[in-house]
């Protein structure tokens, strides 16, 4: 069964409060080269289907539930 890897990221225009805290922590640890951290989500789905039909299904699932288009962008890849 194909595996679908979905990556959800906060829109670049939005302040990522979590990312900022993690960036500050990294800098405090001495990693002063870190200029920005953005935190997103990674999901693995096992989905029946193939080709355009599978693409359409994944897009629909992303847009209806997995992603909130007001605040997030997404991309995905199908493996197998």
């Amino acid at each position, binding site marked *: 069964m194909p595996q679908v890897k979905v990556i959800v990221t*906060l829109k670049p225009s*939005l*302040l990522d*409060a*979590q990312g*900022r*805290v993690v960036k500050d922590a990294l800098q405090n640890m001495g990693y002063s080269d870190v200029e920005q951290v953005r935190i997103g989500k990674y999901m693995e789905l096992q989905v029946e289907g193939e080709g355009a039909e599978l693409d359409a299904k994944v897009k629909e699932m992303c847009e209806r*539930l*997995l992603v*909130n288009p*007001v*605040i997030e962008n997404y991309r995905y890849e199908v493996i197998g």
Partner: protein
Amino acid sequence: MTGSKTLERVNVNTGKRPKFAIVRFPGSNCDQDAFHVVQDALHCPVEYVWHQDKSLKGFDVVIVPGGFSYGDYLRCGAVARFSNIMDAVINHANSGRYVFGVCNGFQILCEAHLLPGALVRNRDCKFLCQYVHLRVENAGTPYSSAYSDGQVIRVPIAHGEGCYIAEPETLRQLEAHNRVVFRYADARGNVTPESNPNGSLNNIAGIANKAYNVVGMMPHPERACDKMLGSKDGLGLFSSLVQTIILKKM
């Protein structure tokens, strides 16, 4: 608190009392507070409705309460939005009846697209549990008619993801049509960056849909309906609704 207008203008003996539904999801935790206010402060009939139910027939008002529905998994409100009952909630709203979302309920209504925008992690990444002051921005809605424009009320907040954001065009529409009902302010009613607890755009604490029959807000008016609990300022919101509905039915 400013303004001396009484918050309890509803005569309990007038007309037919509106019937309230309180939707319960796994993880709701402000359902009993809302129930108590409707039953004991408003003297209106009220029932819990389970998220797996499909009907809201006979109800005038639906309250989507606060809590952590479905453990806030994925995004706050994202999973609850697809519960069985939500089709009925959406139909209820689209037919012009009243839907009020508090805290997680507000998040659910945004996820369901009954209200625009989204609620994201607080600016300082902290869960905030404290009293705030709100300025009533539009006392002309069914949810705020017991208040006056510019009145300051004191109610609690309790959220980790309460930072309201929206696309610039959405924000412009909200402001242009007075759909911002409550804004975070200081005790004197000044809307300042310091009085904004969570980083919400334009200090937005609560908004209405285009028809003003759906309102969502992060603060908890249902926890501020009894002096004994620290504030009674939230009661005006509920009594506004009751009065609006009674007047409509007369």
